[in-house]
């Protein structure tokens, strides 16, 4: 088992890099904790805009308007009201709109002339800008119509608020939500980190074993070719198993009981199919890479390509049609489809998971066959 032992010896020297990627993975996972929801909701809830209100008028009318806006939006405290601060907060989407009720608003309202009486800061041509303006315009239009009918300013504003409480019947036809659970994020990001960890640890080992000197030495020894290959296969399987066990333990620590469900089991199965594909890809690049300095570059390019285009970093429904078409050729796309199915699985047949795993395994086979072809071509050229 000399080749296998050598494999493990080099693997030990790469543990530092694996730890680094685990730390990155944990960082990303924790970052997305805030974006998760535990269970999809069956009820429709309109999105509330994030609005910062500043009342400079401080009158009864402005107070009623302020209260109405506050009740229908999420409050945001802006640090300063200068143009640059507002632009910063709007650009980084901390706030959807900044509404300033200027001095003299009550006077304008009482004189029935409220056109352009409220100052707004919104992002031009966006839906949030239209919704903000619609919220204010609709309320004040109704209030003004009551005021014109003879109601006092406060009465008309109160009546307008009462009117604004009329809501239509809105049905949510799908239980699917756009926010995912922590479990989903964990397993989808696994698609990125499995490539990184397996590549940075596996490719340099194969590069050493395929180097001219060592390869020639093994060839002229009494070591059989098949035995060498079997031990390399064993080494790659060990590498995959160690990485898989590490992330399984991490999943139990982070997700706790969430993985002990049928959904968790399907996600694990899907991840297992994916890691076989990744190991096959490692074997392929192990035949191609000639210098250690290229490993990091290849790892990053492949991992980022699979992640950005395959739906790991960005949900599939946000990808454009062209990108989605390209994504069909990436194994990460099928892995993510598998994750989505496993995450949303409630009851019935889970054969679809095996459908995705099969595609991942077909990719694994294709990569392996390409690697074998390269080995044969190399052997032919060296004769």
């Amino acid at each position: 088992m000399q080749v296998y032992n050598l494999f493990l010896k080099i693997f030990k020297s790469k543990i530092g890099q694996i730890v680094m990627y685990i730390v990155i993975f944990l960082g990303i996972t924790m970052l997305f904790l805030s974006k998760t929801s535990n269970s999809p909701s069956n009820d429709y809830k309109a999105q509330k805009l994030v609005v910062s209100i500043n009342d400079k008028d401080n009158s009864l009318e402005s107070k009623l308007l302020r209260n109405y806006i506050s009740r229908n939006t999420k409050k945001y405290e802006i640090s300063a009201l200068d143009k640059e601060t507002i632009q910063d907060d709007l650009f980084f989407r901390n706030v959807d709109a900044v509404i300033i009720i200027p001095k003299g608003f009550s006077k304008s309202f009482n004189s029935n002339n409220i056109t352009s009486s409220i100052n707004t800061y919104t992002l031009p041509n966006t839906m949030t800008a239209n919704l903000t303006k619609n919220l204010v315009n609709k309320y004040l239009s109704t209030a003004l119509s009551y005021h014109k009918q003879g109601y006092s300013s406060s009465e008309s504003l109160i009546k307008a608020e009462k009117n604004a409480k009329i809501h239509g019947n809105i049905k949510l036809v799908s239980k699917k939500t756009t926010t995912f659970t922590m479990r989903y994020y964990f397993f989808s990001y696994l698609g990125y980190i499995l490539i990184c960890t397996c590549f940075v640890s596996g490719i340099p080992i194969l590069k050493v074993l395929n180097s001219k000197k060592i390869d020639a030495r093994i060839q002229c020894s009494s070591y059989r070719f098949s035995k060498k290959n079997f031990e390399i296969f064993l080494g790659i399987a060990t590498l995959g198993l160690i990485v898989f066990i590490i992330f399984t333990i991490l999943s139990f620590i982070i997700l706790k009981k969430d993985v002990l469900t049928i959904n968790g089991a399907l996600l694990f199965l899907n991840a297992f199919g994916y890691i076989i594909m990744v190991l096959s890809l490692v074997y392929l690049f192990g035949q191609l890479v000639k210098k250690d300095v290229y490993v990091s570059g290849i790892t990053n390019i492949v991992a980022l390509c699979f992640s950005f285009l395959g739906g790991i970093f960005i949900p599939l429904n946000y990808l454009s049609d062209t990108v989605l078409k390209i994504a069909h050729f990436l194994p990460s796309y099928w892995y993510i489809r598998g994750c989505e199915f496993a995450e949303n699985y409630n009851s019935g047949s889970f054969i679809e998971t095996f459908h995705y795993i099969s595609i991942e395994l077909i990719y694994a086979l294709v990569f392996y066959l390409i690697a074998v072809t390269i080995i044969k071509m190399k052997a032919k050229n060296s004769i």
Partner: protein
Amino acid sequence: MFLHYIKYCFITSLRKKEIIFWTLLFPIALSTFMYAGFGKINETTELAKPIPVAVIHNQKDEFFDKAIESISKGDKKIITVKNFSINNATKALNSGKIIGIFYVDDTISLSVKGNNLKETVLSTFLDEYLQRRDSMNFSTVYACKEQLKSHGSQDNIISNFYAILAMTCLFSVFTGLNQIYTLQGNLSALGARRSLAPVPKSIIIFSEFITALFLQFIITSIGFFYMKNILKLNFGERILEIFPVLILGNACGIALGILVGCLKFPRTEGGKAGLATGISMILSVADDLCAPSIRIMIERNYPILNRINPATLISDALYSLNVYETKTRYYTNLTYLSIIAIILCVISYILTRRNRYASL
């Protein structure tokens, strides 16, 4: 002698394939993946474009039809009505071809698939219609006066590409590191030979710095033009002003690389490269390269960190050029970048001057 050094430094730098990869190919690949992934995400999720809907009439409602007509016509139409039968409309809703279905019965109801902005626009329209029918008020007063008239792009996705440009500038650390590595007698054989050459070190260092800066500036500019002309990203109208940012950003990167190379620890080339990569990545992550809002969080809690992070200063300079009307913040960022580059160079000079080796 100066020109001789510049020529050979340029040739050797071009042969460093790994440096060319990390400073040119990697940023181009990363920006392409990012653009493919979410380059136009705001166009579909934020911009006010007509929302496709279906209207299923189980009975007539003239008021509602008029209301639908009023928002589905003109330049600023809110919805586009698609003609579907009830079964096809449900299928279209499930497949995402339409966002909502209005059912006109005794009461009007709406079916949607999610809780996003587009669905909110539709539900707000339905609420408004019902409220107006209740109050019998069909007039609209435009009470809001928009105050923001920005000349630049408000698409915040561009900040990811600012971060990539900042990262590219900081990846000049590898060039700086390589320059100092081939200069120090105790680090490389070439450095040892150069230590014996009867040429003042100031000439060597200066020529190498100028060459590295020129090369990195060209590389970063290629990356920038790729983003601007191939990916068609909107960097605003002030394009010429972007180049001083790239020059100073690269100067900071190279100076940082030289400083890391001059440090007594770590001693090996790998160790120094690891430290340089670590520093440039930490600075880039703090500039929102990997996740949004880190820069804002730092600005709120420890603003001084953003003033000494070259990556943040580069991104902020590009952002201020695009968004603000005045250039005050742009010049402030350039000043900070210049100060950082000078300080790093001075420290490196202090660390390397009068180095003597007992044996090489």
